[in-house]
Structure formats: C-alpha cells, structure tokens
C-alpha cells in the first residue's frame, strides 16, 4: 500500500534493465520500499541491475523472467506477481529503438520492434490494468516518447510504435479513471542512455535521472501526461502543427 505521503511499498519494473526505469526506482521515496521486481529477459545486465539497486540501499530487489513478445504468458505472469501482494507502482519501460534502415530493408525486424514496443505493451498493459482495478489502487507509468508525437522519416518505425503505445496508455488511463488506479504517460525527449549511445545529441537532451525526478514529482501530483523535460511540450506542439512538406524537410 502507498501511504499518505505517497511512499510506495512495492514496485514492478517491466523492462527491468531500462536505465530510465532504474533511475525512476532510485528517485522514488524509499523509506517504505520492500519489494522491487525487475522483470526482463535473463541477462548479465539484469543481474547487475539487481546488484546495483541493492548496493544503493534499496530493499527487496529481485529479478523475474519476462519477455514482452511472449504475450500468451503475460496473464499468468502478472497474476503470480499480484497474488504475492499488492503492487503500488508499475513501470512499463521495455522497448527497443531498433535500426530504421535495417528494418526498412527487412520487415521482419520491423515486426519485432512493433511487437515488443506496442503489441507486447498492449497485452501486459491490459493485464496490469485488470489487477490494479481489482486491488482498488495503484499507478502505472508508461514510458512513451516524443518520437510518438509525430513520426519522422528517419525513425518512423520506432516512432509509430511509440505513437501506438501512447494512445493505448492514454485510453487505459481514461478507462481506469475513478477506479483508484491511475496511469501516468511520460514522453521523454532524447535521453543519454545506452539506447541512444552514438547518436548525435538533439537539443534538450537530458539524463535518465532528470526524467526520473519528473516521473516521481508527477506521480505525487497525480498527473496523467507529462513531457520530460517539461518545455518539450511546446516544442512538440510546434512541430505537430508544421505542414507536411515543411516537416519532411527538417534535418534528421
């Protein structure tokens, strides 16, 4: 259960190796945290993440096998976690950036991206929503992206998966309104993580911990949609209103 000061006791991270999600766990008030589940495919990175959080002083961190694409298993997976105790915050943070050029040339790669980033999220998102609804409280944080606001030629496969995820998460938030459960959609701009390593930095690029702080503050205030950093809201509003021939000619 959350307490009156918004301090959670349990967190489920779907995409337990996501740097932004791990930064979010670190940024949460930890005075009452006793159960943190990092759900991801087994890997050295996942094990190191458990160790790193534990060394950092966070209690009860464990890893659980989870594959966004194995949608048939999502129901039993979510039920098992919630049967063992209420979950106060779920972070839906899995996703692949992919390679636009390769995926254009090989549609199977594009299908994988779409399945992981969008279809997998629809599946697990609905199962999580069902359990949050059943327990009468809880928050789901969905890590969308400004890439979903308007797809660019240079990464429209990734961008469209985020656009789909974003619309799904907003609708889910509306469906859960008044049930005690709540959805926060976060739209980060470019963030310095291993996912974006090597790419030229866009203006207003931030670090994972900046996004994390915004998520934690927004959860406290009960916000439903937030850009990270905040002023990106105005940048994207401008970009979205550009006529197509103009937008198409923008660099990158």
């Amino acid at each position, binding site marked *: *259960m959350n307490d009156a*000061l918004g*301090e959670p006791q349990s967190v489920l991270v779907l995409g337990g190796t996501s740097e932004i999600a791990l930064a979010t766990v670190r940024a949460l008030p930890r*005075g009452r945290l006793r159960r943190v589940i990092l759900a991801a495919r087994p890997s050295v990175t996942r094990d190191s993440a458990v160790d790193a959080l534990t060394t950092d002083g966070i209690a009860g961190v464990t890893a659980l096998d989870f594959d966004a694409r194995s949608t048939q298993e999502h129901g039993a997976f979510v039920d098992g976690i919630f049967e063992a105790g209420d979950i106060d915050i779920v972070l839906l943070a899995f996703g692949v950036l992919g390679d636009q050029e390769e995926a254009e040339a090989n549609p199977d790669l594009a299908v994988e991206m779409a399945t992981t980033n969008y279809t997998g999220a629809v599946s697990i998102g609905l199962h999580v929503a069902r359990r949050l609804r059943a*327990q009468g409280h809880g928050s789901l944080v969905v890590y969308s992206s400004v890439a979903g606001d308007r797809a660019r030629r240079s990464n429209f496969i990734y961008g469209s998966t985020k656009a789909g995820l974003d619309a799904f998460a907003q609708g889910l938030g509306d469906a859960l309104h008044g049930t005690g459960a709540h959805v926060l959609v976060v739209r980060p701009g470019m963030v310095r993580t291993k996912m974006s390593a090597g790419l030229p930095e866009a203006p207003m690029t931030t670090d994972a911990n900046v996004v994390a702080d915004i998520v934690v503050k927004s959860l406290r205030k009960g916000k439903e949609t937030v850009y990270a950093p905040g002023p990106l809201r105005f940048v994207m509003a401008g970009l979205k209103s550009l006529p197509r021939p103009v937008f198409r000619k923008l660099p990158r």
Partner: protein
Amino acid sequence: MSLSISDQEQLLTGWGRTCPSLARVQPCTSIEQVQHEVATAGTRGLLARGLGRSYGDAAQSGGGTVLDLQAFDDISYDSLAGTVTAGAGASLDLVMKTIVPAGAFVPVTPGTRMVTIGGAIGSDVHGKNHHVDGTFGAHVQSLTLVDGTGEIHELSPSGDKAPQFWATIGGMGLTGVITQATFDVIPVSSSLISVDTQRANDLDEVMSVMVAGDDKYRYTVAWIDTVSQSARGVITSGDHAPIDQLSSKQRAHALVFEPKAIATAPPIFPSGLLNKLTIRAFNEAWFRKAPKSASGDLQSISAFFHPLDGVQDWNRIYGPRGFLQYQFVVPDSASHLIRVALDKLRQVGAPSFLTVLKRFGAANPAPLSFPQQGWTLAADVPAGIEGLGQALDELDDLISSAGGRLYLAKDSRQSPQMFARTYPRLSEWQQVRDGLDPRGVFTSDLARRLSI
C-alpha cells in the same frame, strides 16, 4: 472483469482525504446479512466502516467489500443499571441526543460525536478524561461480534472469552463485525460543562498547569500554538455542571442537547489556503480570545467537547492534497519529546492550527489499545509538506526508543517496523485474531500497509 465501475463501488478515504482506494460498499440490515457477507467474502476480504473519522486508511479496503451498518442504530437506555445498549451503527451523536435529556452522558467522548459505537470500540477511543476514566472500551460491558467464520459471539471483559473481547477493543475491525454493544453511562444533572480556562506562555507552563490539574478535574486538554516558538497554549478543564450551578433560567432547559452545525467548509478549497501565515493569524486570534484565567464558565457539551463538529466537512479546508494527523504518546519520563516534536514540525514548516496535548492514565488490557501512562500530542499536518516523511520517521525513532507509540486511528504513514516495535503485544493479538478469523476474511488498507 470489466474496467468500468459498478454503482456499488466507491472511492473511500479517511478523514485526512489521502490514499483513496476503491471498495464495494454493502449496506447491511440484519446480522444474517452480515453472516452471508462473511460466507461469500472474496479474496480481498471484508471490513466494517462507520462514519469514516479515522484519519488514515483504517476504514477502507482496496478491492474489498466494506460493510455499512448504519441500519444497526437502535438505542436503549437502562437507567436502573446505568447502561446503554446500542447498535454498532449508532453514532455517539445519536446516543447523546437520546440519553442527555434523560440525565446521562457517555463515559468517554472523543473530539467528535460523529463516530459509531462500532468505531468507538474498534479504535478504543479516548477523550479529555483518559487519566481519570480510561478509554471507551474500558466501559463496555459486553459486545456482539460476528467473526470470520460467521459465528456470533457475546464477548465481555472477563470470563473465558476475555481475550477475544480485548482483541476486539482497539482491534481496528480486524477481529470481525461488531453489531451491538452495552456500555455504562454516567449520571449528569445538566447538559452544561463548568469550565476553567488558563493561558500559559510556554510549554513548560502548559505542562505544569496540566499536571497540577490531574486530580482536580475530570476533563482537561491543552491547545498548543505550534507557530509560536515558546509553544504557548490554552488549558481548558471542566466537569459536568451540577444543576445548582445553573441560573434559574438555565435550569428550565437543564438537560437540553441540540447541537447545530454553524457553517460548512466550501467544497473547493485550494491547497495552500492553510499556510504558515493564515495559521499564524488564526493561532494568535485563538490565543488572545481565551481569557488569561477564568473559572466556572458554563459551556455546552458541543462547545467544550466537539468544537469542530460545528463546521461541517472542515477537513476540506486542507484542499485536495489532504492532511494527516500525527498523534503519539510518550511516558512521563520522556516528556521532553513533546518539545522536540513541536520544534521538528515547526522546522519542517508544517503549521498546525489544531494541536492538542493531553494526559493519559494507565493502559487497559487490550493488546492494541493506544493510550498508556504519559503525555499525548496530536497535530494536524498538511500532507504535501516537503521533507515531512523524513521528519516524522525521525520522530518515530525517538518516540519508539522512549517507549512510546502512535495511534492507529490517526496513522496514515508509519512503517510496519515502527508499529511492530511499539506494540509488543502484536503477536499475542494476532494469535487471538487468527482464532476468530482463520481464513483472513477481515482486512483493511491499514492492515495491508502494516502487515498485521
């Protein structure tokens, strides 16, 4: 299960309006219906809820079924035996309106009449007379409980079911559903209280005035101005006014009890209306309004005991973020922690217009009952204050080290470890509870948060 909610489901909070959770609210009109709910309870369990005056998450259960026993409101007064038998859904307000005109009063009343008999027992409420008369639970002669198997028990303080009785006193509704109780009442010859008031310029003076008054009055409480560095305050003490203290005009209406609501807090109260400046202004006015010293003033029951009942929905004044109440008790030997707590709350910038200090007498046999010998301080604090969590955790540590504890009916943020440390009879209580509720039917958000 559909994500849409049904008409029966409601978001419930405590009086502090924090941490809402959704429950199916089920009114019950008979004990058989209560038994039926027990028999058909789902995995998220059952909990009885009274008038929702506990401040935190004691009377709500996310995903569960919350029983509304308003219909259990019969009241009968046996003037020969000096007892009242009331349904668990009857409020203290209704009880007082019934018995005061007949020359009787409840043995213990908290600061609001808007608690049910079930809630008064479940939270083992106390009032301004704990050091003289103990808690409400100490005056219960018998109670009827439906346990987690649907069995109906008649419980009383002595005899072979005494452990089950005392586990239910202060048991926060977790031993079963109380449907009815019989408790003793005290005779009164008027509905007025004879009040002595004293202003004190600092905390030391407040505390010494209170200690001096321990044996003089039945009822004593101090209001503390938390904004002032000296923690000045106003001590009000009283006794039921005997009829010969009333003027001849008053005697004609000696036992009249008709409290009225005088105002309503507007529904939209933006957060931040209560801030250091407004509270400073209020506290100054409140301090000055009290006479430096007065004696024998006649006040109505509602003015002396339940001043805030006059402002409907006053909890809205804290805005949408809500508030919490921090109430603790420490033994006399650790009375310096009162000062420490006030200083810490002031440092963190948590202004309170409603901070009271009371004396407590000895504890009763109930394992989860809050009051024990010493001092109790209760402060209202807005929930959104930066750094509040850490400040209260630090106070928790000091209080538990000194042998004190927090009050579950007010708590909305202590840790499970703090609770277990400060209620050493917890596992004893859990054993009795498990005997009454082997399937774990009765649970609440508070029980889940504290893992009890």
